[in-house]
């Protein structure tokens, strides 16, 4: 999904505010929200980390940007606990004494048709291009590298394919690659010529060039 979460390269944002000696959690409810999400993934086992990421991505973009990080965590966890029928939206709003906004529903056909790659197809130094696909559901190839050409720096172990595991599809693992893209390949002349971005991409996302 080309959602608001896919922020790499978006303009219009201002300075980055750094807080000195920042605590791990600023308020008790942030601590609680963090732990509730871990509970949902592990002790309750209602959803996995890919489903969680996608639930956050499905938040209304205005809510996503207005929310602090732990409000996004809370919204993602609550959305999945409602979708998995552990709690109801009505119960949540009764308990909260007001609106409890959840994320948008999952798309009808969330996954693109990407052929599973059980063997690592690429090696260090290979020149690759990111496939030009537009899955309506979860994917981890950021929009800013779609169709862009890079070079493999490193091969990581096989990991669960997120486009599938976020949508309850059968287990599928693939190697990921650290692929380096010159900044000028990504952003044309507006980028420095001594800068690059390395993106960690599953085998299925890539094609040889």
């Amino acid at each position, binding site marked *: 999904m080309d959602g608001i979460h896919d922020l790499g390269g978006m303009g219009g944002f201002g300075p980055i505010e*750094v807080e000195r000696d920042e605590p791990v959690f600023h308020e008790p409810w942030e601590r609680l929200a963090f732990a509730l999400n871990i509970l949902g993934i592990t002790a309750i086992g209602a959803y996995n980390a890919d489903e969680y990421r996608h639930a956050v991505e499905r938040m209304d973009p205005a809510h996503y940007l207005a929310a602090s990080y732990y409000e996004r965590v809370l919204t993602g966890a609550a959305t999945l606990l409602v979708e998995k029928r552990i709690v109801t939206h009505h119960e949540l709003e009764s308990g909260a004494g007001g609106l409890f906004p959840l994320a948008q529903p999952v798309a009808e056909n969330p996954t693109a048709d990407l052929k599973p790659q059980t063997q690592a197809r690429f090696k260090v130094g290979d020149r690759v291009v990111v496939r030009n696909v537009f899955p309506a559901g979860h994917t981890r190839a950021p929009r800013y590298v779609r169709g862009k050409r890079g070079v493999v720096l490193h091969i990581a172990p096989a990991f669960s394919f997120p486009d599938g595991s976020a949508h309850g599809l059968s287990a599928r693992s693939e190697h990921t690659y650290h692929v380096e893209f010159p900044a000028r390949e990504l952003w044309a002349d507006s980028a420095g010529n001594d800068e690059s971005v390395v*993106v960690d991409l599953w085998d299925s996302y890539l094609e040889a060039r």
Partner: protein
Amino acid sequence: MSNPRRSQPPAPPEARANALAELLDEKRLIPAGFLDAVATNAEHEWSPRNGARVVARAWVDPEYRKRLLADATTACAELGYAGPQGEYMVALEDTPALHNVIVCTQCSCTAWPVLGLPPDWYKSPEYRARVVREPRRVLHEMGLDLPKSVSIRVWDTTAETRYMVLPLRPAGTEDWSEEQLAETVTREAMIGIALVSVVTSRE
């Protein structure tokens, strides 16, 4: 959200978090002590102090440095640092010609065992949007002016690899102990928005 003119504000986040916790508790889905144990672990066990000890060891022990750069997951585990969001870690070696910076543009993935839960600035839309597009300017705004001769590599944490930067050891620390060195290594340096700097007593 379609019409801001007519939208009501949501309940405060603390009311929402408490409501969810109370509901799950009523349904007996929260094992005794679970929530506090998880959060306490996040506050105390996952810490940039761990990563700082890894960096200091790599600075004083060339064999450890090699092991760290070849297999950071195992090298961190040697010092006792492992766990969730640290299943596959990679250390990025700064050199006088190359500076590494870490981001997670799509969410806020971080190597918890060695960096701790990430700070607000790392999770902000500002950092996530901008550092992949204008890294030199972002670093400048955050107080790090790199010489033009230094290239910048930005690492976007888009899969399961969790990165940490192995910064340059500051000059003038040749006779410092590993413990002294570890004190100088900040989370910011291990993410790449700062260098490790020291005030040496001889100056």
